[in-house]
């Protein structure tokens, strides 16, 4: 706990309402994401995890309240400046399968390249480092269309790392991966946040893994958003109430969900 007081907040949300013009998804949200923290966003399907991430990354206007990044209101940050603060990894987008792995990762350098997008030596180094970090240098000349889902996930993560932003948001980075690779990616996110001082926020359905690995958990449920440490969350009864009680139950003693 002493350690926490030293850390600096990078993103803060106050009295935030999120949703669309015809539907409020969640209200009265207060969040604080500190430097070098790994934060999981959990919640059942359709609870509004994606809406929250879209709003926090500036892709969706909030209905009311404020979001500030490095003490600056997100609405006053230009798209260009925002691209140097936040990088994203999405699930299933329609992208060009023709892109070479190194080209896709190099696109992460766009905020720093000239008007034609030409790479400087610094950009080339950043791309190389990102490829090394994810152990995919050997695939740099491959076409993205020829990669497996797991490899592709790594490529998109490398792209976000090459963008060198203090904040990375990922939408369900572990879908399509087997248990081993799920843990590989999440541990990598953890190491990354420690080693490079990045704050990493990801939406996930892997509550068990999130409880073990993350510094903070953001729970989206029934129009409410709660932020707690894993211990606090386990000791509250919020996880017991997450799912309908007919099939599954949270067991605080084993920190695990149990099939009934």
């Amino acid at each position, binding site marked *: 706990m002493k350690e926490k007081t030293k850390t600096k907040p990078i993103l803060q949300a106050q009295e935030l309402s999120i949703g669309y013009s015809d539907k409020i998804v969640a209200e009265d949200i207060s969040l604080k994401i500190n430097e070098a923290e790994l934060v999981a966003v959990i919640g059942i399907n359709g609870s509004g995890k994606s809406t929250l991430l879209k709003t926090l*990354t500036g*892709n969706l206007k909030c209905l009311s309240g404020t979001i500030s990044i490095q003490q600056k209101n997100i609405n006053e940050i230009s798209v260009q400046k925002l691209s140097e603060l936040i*990088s994203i990894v999405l699930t299933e*987008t329609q992208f*060009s399968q023709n*892109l070479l792995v190194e080209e896709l990762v190099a696109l992460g350098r*766009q*905020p720093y390249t000239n008007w034609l997008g030409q790479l400087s030596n610094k950009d080339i180094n950043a791309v190389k480092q990102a490829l090394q970090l994810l152990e995919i240098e050997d695939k740099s000349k491959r076409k993205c269309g020829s990669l497996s889902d797991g490899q592709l996930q790594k490529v998109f993560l490398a792209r976000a790392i090459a963008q060198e932003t203090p904040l990375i948001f990922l939408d369900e980075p572990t879908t399509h991966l087997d248990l081993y690779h799920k843990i590989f990616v999440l541990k990598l996110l953890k190491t990354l946040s420690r080693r490079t001082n990045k704050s990493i926020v990801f939406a996930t359905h892997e509550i068990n893994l999130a409880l073990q690995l993350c510094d903070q958990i953001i729970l989206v449920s029934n129009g409410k958003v709660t932020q707690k440490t894993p211990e606090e969350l386990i000791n509250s009864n919020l996880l017991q109430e997450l799912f309908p009680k007919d099939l599954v139950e949270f067991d605080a003693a084993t920190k695990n969900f149990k099939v009934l």
Partner: protein
Amino acid sequence: MQKTSLSLLLGLIILVVLLMINISLGSVSIPLKDIFASFFNTEIDKETWRYIILNYRLPKAITAVLVGSGLALSGLLMQTLFRNPLAGPYVLGLSSGASLGVAIVILGGAVFGRFFSALILSKWTLVIAASLGSILVLLAVLATSFRVKDTMALLIIGLMFASLTSAVVSMLSYFSSSESLQKYIFWSFGSLGNLSWQEVFILTVFWSLGVIISIFCIKNLNALLLGETYAKSLGTNLKQNRILVILATGLLAGSITAFAGPIAFIGLAVPHLVRQVISKSDHLVLFPAVAIGGAILMLICDSIAQLPGSNLTLPINSITSLIGAPVVIWLLLRKKKLYF
């Protein structure tokens, strides 16, 4: 990087060779040394040859290069903007807009009385009508692009404009005389050979404007390869980029259709053909490659259309389709899937 530069250089050499072959072909056979003589203003065996080369074949070959490269580039722009491998300049309804303009002038003359018939004699009337038609459709698409958030919706709107205009054209043809119908059909065959030097110059101006605008879109087009959400997260101003790309396509495809008629398949097929040779997706590399590729394919089509050794010239629009359609089918059969 070296391999791509080598491919580009090779493409340029093929382009120059094809340009020479294209100029040497025609109903009158002119020896190679006299072709060079007419360029360098040295002594030539027959002065008529110089006239044929300088005032007929050279402007036609240059038109082929401008038309091929311009259409291929606008095809690439559309495929990346809509992230759809089947997109081409026609998807925005530009060619249909031009067709409507020309149809109203040629066919409308018969329907709306004799008012137009005096105008039809001038070739410029057709050029202006085609340009106006393209610009109108372009403005309509631009106006909707301000309102529509999704580029896919824009694609559908473009296709709807195309069906609307072709319905009006059908209606006009139903009521028009066979003579004016024939005139319209001849325009729709497309033609590279009717341009004077002055017209080639005007086409060059529009072509250059379109190319310059699209060069400013290169970086954003690269970002768009990842989809719009990623592009925005990389600092792309999506709306501004969309308007610039549509404007560039309109200038390129609109002016080309106005001067050379609707020419099919070059815009769709060339980017895919080029992707077979160039493995990179960077538009900085694809731009020159696609422009060279389009010019090469257009010169080949035009050389075939002249039916070497005969006095006949086949309609260029059917030649590009006859070559383009099998190429796309062959690519699909070989690769199973086309990517943008």
